[in-house]
């Protein structure tokens, strides 16, 4: 095996290129630069390529010979390839009609224009998504009304299945996370409060933060990550396999059969998860208080009862079904928006989690302002 090589002679104004070795793709990379330089110099001249010394030839080699011929003289047409074996000549003849440039990438536009374009597109899409989601909420609520009027249409089995999947199965992870966050809050709080000799306020810190905010937020975050994404993925996969279209064709309402059971299940289970998260968060805080500080569990519980108004607990719990509804709606909506490829499925699943967390946190801020105003 010999790498491709060539020599050039000038003879009566005719260029003679003698090629030797293996003219195969893997050897051509090394001489491509030289060949192109030669092509540039030889424009308009007559060229005779002698390939009698070529041992192996593949389509890439044949393409290169043909390209050189064309570069040299397009007008007179006296250039030719000589000396090849019949097989080589056939190969070159077969390749010749296909030597033509082609586009590799879509045409690029000015980077600044692209940026402005993307920004505008993003705004536009965001606006449309907001309206579409509101539309979806409306569709879900009307489906709910239909079901309320005619309770037989309620998919009880599906609701219970999703309650187990999204609720019961989420309990260990939600509980563990909340327990640890409660412990961390107590630990950090105690360290700072000690500076003011006010360690005992750790109880208030843990009680208020966990009951009012952390419990429900942690539950929402984990549910969005676990179940919101699962809703998108499962509905999206059904969309790709045309199951949703099949349902519509059979006269089944996908909102009623797919979205409503998931939404109901999540709205029912989220308060349960929130309750559990709150309790375990407080226990986590209490445990740290008992071990790292000198606050006995009995004192912790006593002070909790004295100083933390029950309203804190209710504020956390009231928010739960709203968060659940938002997560379920966005998860299902994004699933319905999946189109065509599995790439879109992945994008939509990510979007579903990001959007539901975004909306949950915005909603939480509004709740905080609301409860502050009504002084609850």
């Amino acid at each position, binding site marked *: 095996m010999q790498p491709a090589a060539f020599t050039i002679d000038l003879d009566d104004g005719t260029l003679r290129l003698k090629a030797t070795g293996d003219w195969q793709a893997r050897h051509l990379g090394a001489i491509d630069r030289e060949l192109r330089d030669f092509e540039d110099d030889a424009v308009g001249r007559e060229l005779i390529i002698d390939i009698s010394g070529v041992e192996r030839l593949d389509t890439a080699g044949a393409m*290169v010979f043909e390209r050189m011929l064309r570069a040299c003289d397009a007008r007179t047409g006296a250039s030719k390839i000589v000396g090849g074996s019949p097989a080589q000549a056939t190969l070159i003849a077969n390749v010749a009609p296909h030597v033509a440039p082609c586009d590799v990438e879509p045409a690029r536009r000015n980077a600044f224009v692209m940026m402005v374009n993307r920004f505008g597109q993003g705004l536009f899409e965001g606006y449309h998504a907001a309206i579409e989601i509101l539309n979806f909420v409306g569709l879900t609520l009307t489906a709910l009304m239909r079901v309320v009027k005619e309770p037989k249409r309620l998919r009880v089995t599906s609701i219970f299945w999703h309650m187990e999947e999204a609720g019961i199965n989420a309990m260990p992870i939600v509980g563990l996370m909340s327990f640890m966050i409660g412990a961390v809050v107590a630990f950090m709080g105690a360290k700072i409060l000690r500076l003011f000799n006010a360690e005992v306020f750790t109880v208030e810190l843990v009680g208020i933060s966990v009951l009012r905010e952390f419990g429900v937020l942690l539950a929402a975050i984990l549910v969005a990550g676990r179940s919101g994404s699962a809703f998108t993925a499962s509905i999206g996969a059904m969309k790709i396999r045309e199951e949703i279209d099949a349902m519509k064709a059979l006269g089944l309402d996908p909102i009623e059969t797919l979205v409503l059971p998931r939404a109901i299940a999540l709205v029912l289970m989220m308060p349960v998860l929130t309750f559990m998260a709150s309790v375990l968060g407080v226990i986590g805080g209490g445990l740290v208080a008992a071990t790292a500080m000198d606050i006995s569990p009995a004192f912790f519980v006593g002070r909790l009862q004295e100083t933390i108004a029950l309203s804190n607990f209710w504020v956390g719990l009231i928010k739960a079904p709203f968060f659940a509804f938002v997560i379920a709606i966005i998860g299902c909506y994004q699933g319905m928006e999946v189109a065509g490829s599995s790439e879109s499925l992945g994008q939509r699943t990510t979007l579903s989690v990001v959007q539901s967390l975004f909306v949950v946190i915005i909603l939480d801020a509004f709740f905080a302002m609301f409860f502050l105003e009504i002084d609850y």
Partner: protein
Amino acid sequence: MTGKIEEDAIIEVEGLRTQFGEAVIHDNLDLRVRRNEILGVVGGSGTGKSVLMRAIIGLKEPSAGTVRVFGEDFYALKPEERLAVERRWGVLFQGGALFSSMTVAQNVMAPMREHLKLPDSLATDIAAMKISMVGLPPDAGAKFPSELSGGMSKRAGLARALALDPEIVFLDEPTAGLDPIGAENFDRLIVSLKESLGLTVFMVTHDLDTLHATCDRVAVLAEKRVIAIGPLDEVRRSDHPWIQEYFSGPRGRAASSAKSERHAPRADRD
């Protein structure tokens, strides 16, 4: 005669046994593919046509038997030796299996980038040639796979399979999902590429028209092995009930009568 066949064999499968868990797909299967032929592999659904192809190209390790390609026992090779063998074949998967994040031209250039150290300009020229060879227009090069029709995806997949000038091309149901015109064009493309590039083609197919139009020999898979192999007319004469039903059913008859009608104009076009 037998000696000649063995000499010519480019793929030799001997005593192949593949299984998924308890389910045995092939048992004691023998198959020889000759150099520079188009071999069509047919069989009912679930007889393991695609699995046989995957066993030959190294995607499904057999539990017994040997697979020799280019005379080398593929599954006994070291990883880097396997790579050298893998470079000498190209595979067209059923849906084209194009990389969705790259344009068609970049897809075709991918194996060249990976295996040959080519400057971009040369790789682009080669990719353009392959894209033209499989009958795609030049502007298809800049398109993403999601913008292509089924037939175009298959052509683009074939261009990628041909990127490294393979000696063998494996085709998994190349005409499935194409309309009859697209399928016929694809058949013609395969025959012309085989002739101009001296390819050996291993083709899994369901399509009786494709069998008639392209294949030099046909292998029939049933009962976990190859029950018949040979030129189509010879295989049809077998009295195995499945073969009888397959080739002599209404579709089989229609395809074989269409063959004689199509032969004359085809010679003109080539």
